[in-house]
């Protein structure tokens, strides 16, 4: 409404009060009454809560964050011992959640794209297999799948009798061992050099994108320079990196990366559940591109790979991206089910905090605020990406 009024040429636009009342709309007093009722309800609930807390002798406020937390956390990316403050415990939980969610998103995307493409491969047997995988995974609860994965992870043999694949992956009851890069003597200069390389690379790509001239060859050259730089940076700054294979040493397996049974189960559950969702999204996205596009591209003499890369995928991505975004957000939220299988994620730490301090209102408020912040930032980032995909499509059309 207001924009129409503004568009009319004339000396006087609507005043600020008029604009506000237009925005507020019909039935102004009823709205005020409803909002007042909601505020009154929350005041009442808050009042009751404060009264209950006073009765059981808990002072409201966030002072508890600085107090020592007398519990251990099974696994943390940052050092944590019993006695460290609650704030640090919550940070450790948050990092655990982010670690599971980020790794889950990446692996679910890879598996989902493979499954989605396999479903469209034209091979009847493979397509039927993918169809059933998706149906079974989609129609059973994630929590049930997590219970299954954790009981599987705990039933693996001890390290000495570990199930191994290719001599480098080990499944044991102490977790899953995978090969990985081990770093030694990493110093501040190493980090600076690596950061500088990454920034230079990203700046070059952004600049070339901005000019809309990024031939594959130049991008390849830049990537090769980046990789070469990284490889050289380590010996030049005195650091080393080796490809470590896990191997049996004594009673345990050493080397590579160790995923605890809880983390491995959570990751397996999230990846399986969301790869099915992403496979469906990829399938829907590719099928949303009209058949005529394939036929026309073939008539122009493009081969299958070129058609996919140059014609179909750019259009399919416009369907795929927003749906995948909401899948990522769901995955992040669903990683909270970790609490049921004993992985110390944010929810699990917040729950322990609430139970040991009695400050459940503050703890849960923090929990909800953190999830809202994660959700909001991912949506914003994805919206920016979305707009770029859409613009690029229009620019080239």
């Amino acid at each position, binding site marked *: 409404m207001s924009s129409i009024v503004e568009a009319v040429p004339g000396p006087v636009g609507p005043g600020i009060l008029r604009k506000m009342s237009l925005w507020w709309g*019909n039935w102004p007093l009823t709205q005020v009454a409803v909002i007042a009722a909601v505020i009154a309800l929350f005041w009442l609930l808050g009042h009751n809560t404060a009264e209950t807390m006073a009765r059981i002798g808990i002072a409201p406020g966030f002072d508890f964050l600085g107090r020592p937390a007398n519990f251990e956390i099974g696994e943390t990316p940052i050092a944590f011992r019993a006695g460290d403050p609650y704030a640090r415990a919550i940070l450790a939980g948050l990092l655990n959640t982010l670690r599971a969610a980020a790794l889950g998103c990446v692996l679910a995307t890879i598996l989902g794209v493979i499954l989605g493409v396999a479903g469209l491969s034209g091979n009847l047997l493979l397509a039927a*297999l993918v169809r059933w995988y998706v149906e079974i995974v989609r129609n059973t609860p994630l929590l049930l799948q997590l219970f299954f994965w954790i009981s599987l992870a705990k039933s693996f043999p001890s390290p000495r009798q570990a199930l191994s694949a290719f001599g480098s992956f080990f499944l044991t009851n102490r977790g899953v061992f995978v090969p990985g890069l081990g770093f030694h003597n990493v110093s501040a200069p190493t980090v600076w050099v690596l950061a500088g390389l990454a920034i230079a690379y990203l700046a070059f790509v952004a600049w070339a994108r901005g000019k809309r001239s990024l031939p594959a060859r130049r991008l390849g050259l830049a990537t090769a320079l980046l990789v070469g730089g990284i490889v050289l940076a380590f010996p030049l700054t005195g650091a080393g990196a080796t490809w470590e294979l896990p191997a049996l040493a004594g009673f345990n397996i050493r080397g590579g990366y160790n995923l605890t049974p809880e983390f491995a189960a959570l990751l397996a559950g999230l990846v399986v559940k969301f790869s099915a969702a992403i496979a469906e999204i990829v399938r829907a996205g590719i099928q949303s591109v009209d058949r005529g596009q394939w036929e026309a591209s073939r008539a122009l003499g493009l081969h299958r790979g070129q058609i996919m890369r140059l014609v179909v995928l750019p259009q399919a991505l416009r369907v795929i991206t927003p749906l995948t975004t909401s899948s990522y957000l769901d995955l992040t939220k669903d990683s909270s089910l970790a609490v049921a299988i004993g992985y110390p994620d944010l929810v699990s730490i917040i729950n322990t905090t609430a139970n040991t301090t009695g400050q459940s209102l503050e703890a*849960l408020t923090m929990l909800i605020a953190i999830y*809202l912040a994660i959700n909001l930032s991912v949506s914003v980032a994805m919206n920016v990406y979305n707009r770029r995909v859409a613009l690029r499509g229009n620019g080239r059309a």
Partner: protein
Amino acid sequence: MTISEVLDSRTWRSSATLQMLKIGLFGTPLNSIITMATVALLGWIVPPLVRWGVFDATWTGTSADCAAASGACWAFVGAKFRFILFAFYPPALQWRPAIVMALLLGLLIVTAQPRFWRKGLLVAWFVVVAASWILMSGTLTPPAVPSNQWGGLAVTLFVWSVCFGLATPLAILLALARRSSMGGLRVLAVAFIELMRGTPMVAILYVAMLILPMAIPNGQLIDKNVRAMIMITLFWSAYVAEVVRAGLQAIPSGQQEAATALGLGYWRTMQLIVLPQALRLVIPGMVNLAIGFLLATSLLAVIGIFDLLNAARSSATDPQWLGYYNEAYLFAALIYFLLCFGGSRYSLWLEKYLRRSERI
């Protein structure tokens, strides 16, 4: 038609199927390789599973029989069937949740058929939900059973249908508020919907467990089950509201303007013109949401309510039948799968049905 003609047509049809299979499985060299690899993969995975689940399995008997065999113990499922359906509901009164389950499933089957979509169905929902509550709690037919003894599949179906049924009217109000020209209510609706949709359901359940008892006067007296249902209803209403909003957005504004021109007020316009069209559009979306919600009720296990999943899990902690988790989970998974797979097939059929009836 002579016999030879029948035979001819049959061989022709089967050869067409064969032809399709041939192209689909061995059409190109790559396709043949994929088929071989898939068969090899299946050959590696399926036989041990079949051996475990069928040939080496124990179908009847006691846990001693199961311990003797190396396969699955389906006798366990037979012994724990009642527990998985009703959990800790007093055994002598288990006819109550049985009737409730029958009522709710009957209601769902009736609701699924478009020819019953009338005002009477709303009344039926109200009556069945109220009757289920009265039966489960036993307020009118003593002895009363407190809701912390409810459990199993009965509680899963009960929480699901009651919360979904209560969330829908709330969601319609939220969606209307979000679409309205009233700034204050719009902000309120957006804030509520985004808050709920940005929060994991586990966090909402913890609010029901930890905050509600403090916030409601005498909140400790309200059962865990009821508290969880209050919060789940609020939580789901945000999701339903977004689906309803999509339907409202699809109705051309001319409809509302025409209704206003005819002298209808806001509520009558919505009730008679806009909502009937909008809700019809979003029915398939609602069915999909309902399937997701049924799976989500399994989160009740996290706060220690004995829903289907938790009942299945704890049935394997019985000292007599210790550790048959795989069988318990598979049985629970089968129930969830049948309900949800049936639901998603139904949703596909419904979409086609609605599109067809639109065209006529």
